[in-house]
Protein backbone atom coordinates (compact mmCIF):
# COMPACT_ATOMS: atom_id res chain seq x y z
CA UNK A 1 0.00 0.00 0.00
CA UNK A 2 2.89 2.35 0.66
CA UNK A 3 3.78 2.11 -3.03
CA UNK A 4 0.54 3.74 -4.16
CA UNK A 5 1.09 7.19 -2.63
CA UNK A 6 4.71 7.09 -3.77
CA UNK A 7 3.68 6.29 -7.34
CA UNK A 8 1.02 9.00 -7.16
CA UNK A 9 3.56 11.50 -5.88
CA UNK A 10 5.99 10.58 -8.64
CA UNK A 11 3.25 10.93 -11.23
CA UNK A 12 2.34 14.38 -9.94
CA UNK A 13 5.97 15.42 -9.77
CA UNK A 14 6.69 14.27 -13.27
CA UNK A 15 3.65 16.10 -14.56
CA UNK A 16 5.00 19.49 -13.50
CA UNK A 17 5.67 21.24 -16.78
CA UNK A 18 9.23 22.32 -17.51
CA UNK A 19 8.15 25.91 -17.84
CA UNK A 20 7.39 25.97 -14.14
CA UNK A 21 10.82 24.75 -13.12
CA UNK A 22 13.03 26.95 -11.01
CA UNK A 23 16.43 27.06 -12.65
CA UNK A 24 19.68 28.36 -11.23
CA UNK A 25 20.27 29.81 -14.69
CA UNK A 26 16.99 30.91 -16.17
CA UNK A 27 16.56 30.88 -19.93
CA UNK A 28 16.35 34.19 -21.78
CA UNK A 29 16.19 35.45 -25.30
CA UNK A 30 17.07 38.81 -26.81
CA UNK A 31 16.28 39.80 -30.36
CA UNK A 32 17.19 42.87 -32.37
CA UNK A 33 16.09 43.84 -35.85
CA UNK A 34 18.35 46.19 -37.81
CA UNK A 35 17.37 47.16 -41.34
CA UNK A 36 15.39 43.97 -41.78
CA UNK A 37 18.03 41.63 -40.34
CA UNK A 38 16.92 39.80 -37.20
CA UNK A 39 19.59 38.68 -34.75
CA UNK A 40 18.60 36.53 -31.78
CA UNK A 41 20.58 35.36 -28.78
CA UNK A 42 19.07 32.49 -26.83
CA UNK A 43 20.87 31.72 -23.59
CA UNK A 44 20.67 30.77 -19.96
CA UNK A 45 21.60 33.34 -17.33
CA UNK A 46 23.94 32.09 -14.62
CA UNK A 47 24.14 34.29 -11.56
CA UNK A 48 27.18 35.23 -9.55
CA UNK A 49 25.42 34.12 -6.34
CA UNK A 50 28.13 35.51 -4.08
CA UNK A 51 30.96 33.61 -5.70
CA UNK A 52 34.11 35.61 -4.98
CA UNK A 53 35.68 34.91 -8.34
CA UNK A 54 33.83 33.98 -11.51
CA UNK A 55 36.42 34.42 -14.25
CA UNK A 56 39.56 32.61 -13.29
CA UNK A 57 37.57 30.82 -10.60
CA UNK A 58 34.22 29.24 -11.43
CA UNK A 59 35.18 29.63 -15.10
CA UNK A 60 38.79 28.63 -15.34
CA UNK A 61 41.46 30.16 -17.55
CA UNK A 62 41.98 27.99 -20.59
CA UNK A 63 38.40 26.74 -20.50
CA UNK A 64 36.08 26.63 -23.52
CA UNK A 65 33.00 28.25 -22.07
CA UNK A 66 29.59 29.07 -23.44
CA UNK A 67 28.62 32.57 -22.31
CA UNK A 68 25.50 31.24 -20.66
CA UNK A 69 24.75 27.94 -18.97
CA UNK A 70 23.09 24.57 -19.50
CA UNK A 71 22.39 24.33 -23.24
CA UNK A 72 24.94 26.40 -25.12
CA UNK A 73 24.07 29.97 -25.97
CA UNK A 74 22.97 30.33 -29.57
CA UNK A 75 23.18 33.20 -32.03
CA UNK A 76 20.85 33.19 -35.01
CA UNK A 77 20.80 35.64 -37.90
CA UNK A 78 18.47 35.59 -40.88
CA UNK A 79 20.93 37.42 -43.15
CA UNK A 80 24.67 37.34 -43.63
CA UNK A 81 26.26 39.76 -41.18
CA UNK A 82 29.68 40.66 -39.87
CA UNK A 83 30.52 40.47 -36.20
CA UNK A 84 33.65 42.26 -35.05
CA UNK A 85 34.64 42.39 -38.71
CA UNK A 86 34.23 38.65 -39.28
CA UNK A 87 31.77 37.29 -41.81
CA UNK A 88 28.94 35.35 -40.19
CA UNK A 89 26.70 33.75 -42.81
CA UNK A 90 22.97 33.51 -42.22
CA UNK A 91 22.29 30.64 -39.83
CA UNK A 92 22.29 29.48 -36.24
CA UNK A 93 25.41 28.94 -34.16
CA UNK A 94 26.39 27.86 -30.70
CA UNK A 95 28.45 30.57 -29.04
CA UNK A 96 31.65 29.83 -27.15
CA UNK A 97 34.50 31.78 -25.69
CA UNK A 98 37.92 30.32 -25.04
CA UNK A 99 39.30 32.05 -21.97
CA UNK A 100 42.94 31.93 -22.95
CA UNK A 101 43.93 34.35 -20.20
CA UNK A 102 42.51 37.20 -18.17
CA UNK A 103 43.01 39.62 -21.04
CA UNK A 104 42.82 37.53 -24.18
CA UNK A 105 39.87 35.39 -25.15
CA UNK A 106 38.80 33.73 -28.38
CA UNK A 107 35.30 34.03 -29.77
CA UNK A 108 33.94 30.87 -31.37
CA UNK A 109 30.77 30.43 -33.40
CA UNK A 110 30.05 26.80 -34.20
CA UNK A 111 27.43 25.64 -36.70
CA UNK A 112 26.62 22.71 -34.38
CA UNK A 113 24.31 24.80 -32.29
CA UNK A 114 22.40 22.28 -30.20
CA UNK A 115 25.12 21.60 -27.66
CA UNK A 116 25.26 21.09 -23.91
CA UNK A 117 27.60 23.46 -22.17
CA UNK A 118 29.97 20.63 -21.35
CA UNK A 119 30.16 19.57 -25.03
CA UNK A 120 32.98 22.01 -25.48
CA UNK A 121 33.82 21.94 -29.17
CA UNK A 122 37.42 21.48 -30.24
CA UNK A 123 38.77 23.81 -32.92
CA UNK A 124 37.42 22.46 -36.17
CA UNK A 125 36.67 23.43 -39.74
CA UNK A 126 33.55 25.48 -40.19
CA UNK A 127 33.93 27.38 -36.97
CA UNK A 128 34.27 31.14 -37.02
CA UNK A 129 36.99 32.13 -34.55
CA UNK A 130 38.69 35.37 -33.69
CA UNK A 131 40.48 36.93 -30.73
CA UNK A 132 38.52 39.23 -28.45
CA UNK A 133 39.47 41.37 -25.50
CA UNK A 134 37.27 41.30 -22.44
CA UNK A 135 36.89 44.55 -20.55
CA UNK A 136 36.57 45.12 -16.83
CA UNK A 137 33.03 46.12 -16.00
CA UNK A 138 30.81 46.89 -13.02
CA UNK A 139 29.30 43.80 -11.43
CA UNK A 140 26.57 42.16 -13.49
CA UNK A 141 24.83 39.61 -11.25
CA UNK A 142 23.08 37.61 -13.97
CA UNK A 143 24.85 37.04 -17.28
CA UNK A 144 23.26 39.35 -19.83
CA UNK A 145 23.38 39.72 -23.60
CA UNK A 146 22.22 43.11 -24.84
CA UNK A 147 22.25 45.34 -27.90
CA UNK A 148 23.29 48.62 -26.26
CA UNK A 149 23.94 50.50 -29.50
CA UNK A 150 22.01 50.47 -32.75
CA UNK A 151 22.85 52.36 -35.93
CA UNK A 152 21.32 52.34 -39.40
CA UNK A 153 23.81 49.70 -40.48
CA UNK A 154 24.48 47.63 -37.39
CA UNK A 155 25.16 48.03 -33.72
CA UNK A 156 26.91 46.44 -30.80
CA UNK A 157 26.21 43.11 -29.16
CA UNK A 158 27.39 42.94 -25.57
CA UNK A 159 27.84 40.13 -23.08
CA UNK A 160 28.33 41.03 -19.44
CA UNK A 161 28.72 38.84 -16.40
CA UNK A 162 30.38 39.31 -13.05
CA UNK A 163 33.25 41.78 -13.59
CA UNK A 164 33.79 41.28 -17.32
CA UNK A 165 32.09 42.41 -20.51
CA UNK A 166 32.66 41.75 -24.19
CA UNK A 167 31.43 44.17 -26.84
CA UNK A 168 31.04 42.93 -30.40
CA UNK A 169 30.24 45.47 -33.12
CA UNK A 170 28.17 44.02 -35.93
CA UNK A 171 27.09 45.14 -39.39
CA UNK A 172 24.05 44.07 -41.36
CA UNK A 173 23.54 44.21 -45.14
CA UNK A 174 21.81 47.33 -46.41
CA UNK A 175 18.29 46.50 -47.56
CA UNK A 176 18.18 49.65 -49.63
CA UNK A 177 21.57 50.68 -51.04
CA UNK A 178 21.68 54.43 -51.65
CA UNK A 179 23.53 54.21 -54.95
CA UNK A 180 21.84 54.65 -58.31
CA UNK A 181 23.48 54.14 -61.70
CA UNK A 182 24.38 57.44 -63.35
CA UNK A 183 22.43 56.60 -66.50
CA UNK A 184 19.25 56.26 -64.51
CA UNK A 185 19.96 59.20 -62.24
CA UNK A 186 20.84 61.80 -64.87
CA UNK A 187 17.31 62.27 -66.29
CA UNK A 188 15.98 63.02 -62.81
CA UNK A 189 18.42 65.77 -61.85
CA UNK A 190 16.79 69.18 -61.63
CA UNK A 191 14.32 71.27 -59.65
CA UNK A 192 10.67 70.47 -59.17
CA UNK A 193 7.73 72.33 -57.71
CA UNK A 194 5.89 70.06 -55.25
CA UNK A 195 2.12 70.31 -55.00
CA UNK A 196 0.53 68.32 -52.21
CA UNK A 197 -2.98 67.04 -52.72
CA UNK A 198 -5.79 66.07 -50.39
CA UNK A 199 -7.32 62.58 -50.45
CA UNK A 200 -10.15 63.92 -52.60
CA UNK A 201 -7.63 65.10 -55.18
CA UNK A 202 -7.95 68.82 -54.49
CA UNK A 203 -4.94 71.01 -53.80
CA UNK A 204 -3.56 71.02 -50.27
CA UNK A 205 -2.07 74.25 -48.98
CA UNK A 206 0.34 72.31 -46.79
CA UNK A 207 3.91 73.30 -47.69
CA UNK A 208 2.63 75.43 -50.55
CA UNK A 209 5.42 76.45 -52.86
CA UNK A 210 7.71 73.65 -51.76
CA UNK A 211 10.49 72.69 -54.14
CA UNK A 212 12.58 69.57 -54.50
CA UNK A 213 16.04 69.86 -55.97
CA UNK A 214 17.44 66.55 -57.15
CA UNK A 215 21.20 66.20 -57.39
CA UNK A 216 23.54 63.31 -58.07
CA UNK A 217 26.53 63.09 -55.76
CA UNK A 218 29.01 60.27 -55.29
CA UNK A 219 26.75 57.76 -56.98
CA UNK A 220 23.67 58.67 -54.97
CA UNK A 221 20.58 60.70 -55.75
CA UNK A 222 19.83 63.37 -53.18
CA UNK A 223 16.73 65.45 -52.83
CA UNK A 224 16.85 68.83 -51.11
CA UNK A 225 13.37 69.83 -49.93
CA UNK A 226 12.59 73.51 -49.39
CA UNK A 227 11.02 73.84 -46.91
CA UNK A 228 12.41 70.63 -45.49
CA UNK A 229 10.14 67.72 -44.69
CA UNK A 230 11.40 66.90 -41.20
CA UNK A 231 14.47 66.01 -39.21
CA UNK A 232 17.70 67.97 -38.93
CA UNK A 233 18.65 67.74 -42.62
CA UNK A 234 16.75 69.27 -45.52
CA UNK A 235 18.09 66.56 -47.81
CA UNK A 236 16.95 63.00 -48.24
CA UNK A 237 18.55 60.28 -50.23
CA UNK A 238 16.35 59.09 -53.06
CA UNK A 239 16.72 55.36 -52.72
CA UNK A 240 15.93 53.24 -55.73
CA UNK A 241 13.12 50.72 -55.48
CA UNK A 242 12.61 50.12 -59.19
CA UNK A 243 13.33 51.96 -62.42
CA UNK A 244 12.35 55.62 -61.85
CA UNK A 245 10.82 54.72 -58.45
CA UNK A 246 12.49 56.08 -55.34
CA UNK A 247 11.75 56.26 -51.65
CA UNK A 248 13.08 58.93 -49.28
CA UNK A 249 15.97 58.01 -47.01
CA UNK A 250 16.15 60.52 -44.18
CA UNK A 251 19.56 61.71 -43.13
CA UNK A 252 21.06 62.51 -39.77
CA UNK A 253 24.73 63.34 -39.35
CA UNK A 254 25.33 62.24 -42.92
CA UNK A 255 23.84 58.78 -42.43
CA UNK A 256 20.53 57.29 -43.46
CA UNK A 257 18.47 56.91 -40.31
CA UNK A 258 15.10 56.04 -41.76
CA UNK A 259 14.02 54.70 -45.13
CA UNK A 260 10.47 55.90 -45.51
CA UNK A 261 9.08 53.20 -47.78
CA UNK A 262 5.56 54.42 -47.09
CA UNK A 263 6.22 57.01 -49.78
CA UNK A 264 7.35 56.35 -53.31
CA UNK A 265 8.38 59.04 -55.76
CA UNK A 266 7.47 57.78 -59.21
CA UNK A 267 9.31 59.88 -61.81
CA UNK A 268 7.78 60.30 -65.22
CA UNK A 269 10.71 59.96 -67.61
CA UNK A 270 10.32 60.53 -71.33
CA UNK A 271 12.98 61.29 -73.94
CA UNK A 272 15.74 61.06 -71.37
CA UNK A 273 14.29 63.65 -68.99
CA UNK A 274 11.87 63.52 -66.10
CA UNK A 275 8.97 65.90 -66.54
CA UNK A 276 7.82 65.38 -62.98
CA UNK A 277 6.89 62.81 -60.39
CA UNK A 278 4.09 61.60 -58.18
CA UNK A 279 4.39 60.83 -54.48
CA UNK A 280 2.26 57.81 -53.63
CA UNK A 281 1.49 56.31 -50.26
CA UNK A 282 1.22 52.70 -49.15
CA UNK A 283 -2.33 52.51 -50.37
CA UNK A 284 -1.11 53.79 -53.72
CA UNK A 285 -2.97 56.97 -52.92
CA UNK A 286 -1.64 60.17 -54.44
CA UNK A 287 0.02 62.51 -51.93
CA UNK A 288 1.78 64.99 -54.17
CA UNK A 289 2.79 65.85 -57.69
CA UNK A 290 6.11 67.32 -58.67
CA UNK A 291 6.50 69.34 -61.83
CA UNK A 292 9.90 70.17 -63.26
CA UNK A 293 10.84 73.84 -63.03
CA UNK A 294 12.28 74.82 -66.43
Amino acid at each position, binding site marked *: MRGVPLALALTIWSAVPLAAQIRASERARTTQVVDGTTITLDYARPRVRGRPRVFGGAVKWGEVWTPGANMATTLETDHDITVDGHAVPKGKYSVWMVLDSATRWTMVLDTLWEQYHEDRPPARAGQIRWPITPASAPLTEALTWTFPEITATGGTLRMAWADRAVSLPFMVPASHPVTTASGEAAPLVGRYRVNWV*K*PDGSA*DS*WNAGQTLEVTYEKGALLGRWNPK*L*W*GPDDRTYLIR*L*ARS*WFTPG*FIEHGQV*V*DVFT*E*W*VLEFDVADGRAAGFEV*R*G*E*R*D*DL*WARGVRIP
Partner: protein
Amino acid sequence: MNSMSTFASTRRDFLSGCAAALVIRLGPVRLHARCGAELGPRRAPHPTPRPGIDGSKVLSVEKLTDTPDAIPAFEAARKVPQILDGIRCHCGCADLKGFYSLLSCYEGDGMARMCVICQGQARLAARLFGAGRSLDEIRAAIDARFG
Protein backbone atom coordinates in the same frame (compact mmCIF):
# COMPACT_ATOMS: atom_id res chain seq x y z
CA MET B 1 -5.08 66.65 -45.32
CA ASN B 2 -5.23 62.96 -44.62
CA SER B 3 -7.12 61.81 -41.57
CA MET B 4 -5.96 60.05 -38.39
CA SER B 5 -3.34 61.42 -36.14
CA THR B 6 -1.17 59.00 -34.23
CA PHE B 7 1.90 56.98 -34.97
CA ALA B 8 3.32 53.60 -34.31
CA SER B 9 5.97 53.93 -31.64
CA THR B 10 9.00 53.52 -33.91
CA ARG B 11 7.94 56.47 -35.97
CA ARG B 12 6.88 58.51 -32.99
CA ASP B 13 10.43 58.82 -31.72
CA PHE B 14 11.81 59.77 -35.07
CA LEU B 15 9.24 62.41 -35.75
CA SER B 16 9.05 63.87 -32.29
CA GLY B 17 10.54 67.14 -33.45
CA CYS B 18 8.31 67.55 -36.47
CA ALA B 19 5.88 70.31 -37.03
CA ALA B 20 2.39 69.38 -35.89
CA ALA B 21 0.96 69.72 -39.34
CA LEU B 22 3.37 67.19 -40.72
CA VAL B 23 2.75 64.84 -37.84
CA ILE B 24 -0.92 64.90 -38.65
CA ARG B 25 -0.22 64.47 -42.30
CA LEU B 26 2.06 61.47 -41.92
CA GLY B 27 -0.02 59.77 -39.30
CA PRO B 28 -2.14 57.47 -41.40
CA VAL B 29 0.64 55.50 -42.97
CA ARG B 30 1.79 53.91 -39.73
CA LEU B 31 -1.46 53.08 -38.12
CA HIS B 32 -3.15 50.61 -40.36
CA ALA B 33 -2.91 46.98 -39.48
CA ARG B 34 -0.93 44.79 -41.80
CA CYS B 35 -3.02 41.69 -41.83
CA GLY B 36 -0.28 39.07 -41.95
CA ALA B 37 2.75 41.19 -41.24
CA GLU B 38 3.88 38.99 -38.38
CA LEU B 39 4.57 36.29 -40.90
CA GLY B 40 7.00 38.54 -42.72
CA PRO B 41 7.33 39.15 -46.42
CA ARG B 42 7.43 36.16 -48.67
CA ARG B 43 9.53 35.61 -51.75
CA ALA B 44 7.59 32.61 -53.06
CA PRO B 45 6.50 32.69 -56.70
CA HIS B 46 3.41 34.52 -57.74
CA PRO B 47 0.42 32.26 -58.42
CA THR B 48 -0.93 31.53 -61.86
CA PRO B 49 -4.31 33.17 -62.46
CA ARG B 50 -7.05 30.57 -62.44
CA PRO B 51 -8.94 30.29 -65.74
CA GLY B 52 -12.31 32.00 -65.65
CA ILE B 53 -11.68 33.78 -62.39
CA ASP B 54 -13.83 36.83 -61.79
CA GLY B 55 -14.59 39.37 -59.11
CA SER B 56 -18.00 38.05 -58.15
CA LYS B 57 -16.79 37.05 -54.66
CA VAL B 58 -15.17 40.39 -53.90
CA LEU B 59 -16.99 42.04 -51.01
CA SER B 60 -19.55 44.59 -52.08
CA VAL B 61 -19.48 48.22 -51.01
CA GLU B 62 -22.40 47.55 -48.67
CA LYS B 63 -20.15 45.31 -46.59
CA LEU B 64 -17.50 48.01 -46.25
CA THR B 65 -19.42 50.61 -44.31
CA ASP B 66 -17.07 50.26 -41.32
CA THR B 67 -13.98 50.70 -43.47
CA PRO B 68 -14.76 53.32 -46.09
CA ASP B 69 -11.06 53.96 -46.72
CA ALA B 70 -10.83 50.46 -48.14
CA ILE B 71 -13.56 50.93 -50.73
CA PRO B 72 -11.23 52.12 -53.54
CA ALA B 73 -9.10 49.00 -53.11
CA PHE B 74 -12.13 46.69 -53.29
CA GLU B 75 -13.29 48.53 -56.39
CA ALA B 76 -9.85 47.95 -57.87
CA ALA B 77 -10.09 44.25 -57.02
CA ARG B 78 -13.44 43.99 -58.77
CA LYS B 79 -11.98 45.74 -61.80
CA VAL B 80 -8.96 43.47 -62.34
CA PRO B 81 -9.61 40.12 -60.60
CA GLN B 82 -7.63 38.22 -63.22
CA ILE B 83 -4.58 40.35 -62.41
CA LEU B 84 -4.95 40.09 -58.64
CA ASP B 85 -5.27 36.32 -58.98
CA GLY B 86 -1.76 36.27 -60.41
CA ILE B 87 -0.20 38.16 -57.51
CA ARG B 88 1.11 36.75 -54.27
CA CYS B 89 0.24 39.04 -51.39
CA HIS B 90 3.29 40.47 -49.63
CA CYS B 91 1.64 41.08 -46.26
CA GLY B 92 2.08 37.45 -45.26
CA CYS B 93 -1.53 36.36 -45.64
CA ALA B 94 -0.59 34.24 -48.65
CA ASP B 95 0.44 31.53 -46.21
CA LEU B 96 -2.96 31.35 -44.59
CA LYS B 97 -5.21 28.40 -45.32
CA GLY B 98 -7.55 29.00 -48.22
CA PHE B 99 -5.62 31.93 -49.65
CA TYR B 100 -4.65 31.48 -53.29
CA SER B 101 -3.72 34.98 -54.36
CA LEU B 102 -4.13 38.66 -53.59
CA LEU B 103 -7.69 38.29 -54.81
CA SER B 104 -8.37 35.99 -51.82
CA CYS B 105 -7.79 38.96 -49.50
CA TYR B 106 -10.86 40.62 -51.00
CA GLU B 107 -13.16 37.62 -50.71
CA GLY B 108 -14.70 35.81 -47.74
CA ASP B 109 -14.05 37.90 -44.65
CA GLY B 110 -12.35 40.52 -46.77
CA MET B 111 -9.24 40.81 -44.67
CA ALA B 112 -7.98 43.51 -47.03
CA ARG B 113 -10.41 45.84 -45.29
CA MET B 114 -7.91 46.19 -42.46
CA CYS B 115 -4.65 45.76 -44.36
CA VAL B 116 -2.95 48.71 -46.00
CA ILE B 117 -0.54 46.41 -47.83
CA CYS B 118 -3.37 44.42 -49.46
CA GLN B 119 -5.05 47.68 -50.39
CA GLY B 120 -1.94 49.26 -51.84
CA GLN B 121 -1.14 46.20 -53.94
CA ALA B 122 -4.61 46.04 -55.47
CA ARG B 123 -4.74 49.74 -56.21
CA LEU B 124 -1.27 49.72 -57.72
CA ALA B 125 -2.12 46.66 -59.82
CA ALA B 126 -5.28 48.28 -61.16
CA ARG B 127 -3.47 51.54 -61.90
CA LEU B 128 -0.64 49.85 -63.75
CA PHE B 129 -3.03 47.58 -65.65
CA GLY B 130 -4.90 50.69 -66.70
CA ALA B 131 -1.62 52.12 -67.96
CA GLY B 132 -1.15 49.09 -70.18
CA ARG B 133 1.36 47.13 -68.10
CA SER B 134 1.55 43.35 -68.38
CA LEU B 135 1.00 40.98 -65.46
CA ASP B 136 4.74 40.35 -65.23
CA GLU B 137 5.47 44.07 -65.14
CA ILE B 138 2.83 44.55 -62.47
CA ARG B 139 4.27 41.69 -60.42
CA ALA B 140 7.73 43.26 -60.65
CA ALA B 141 6.38 46.63 -59.56
CA ILE B 142 4.55 45.13 -56.61
CA ASP B 143 7.62 43.16 -55.58
CA ALA B 144 9.68 46.36 -55.70
CA ARG B 145 7.13 48.39 -53.78
CA PHE B 146 5.93 45.89 -51.19
CA GLY B 147 8.35 42.97 -51.28
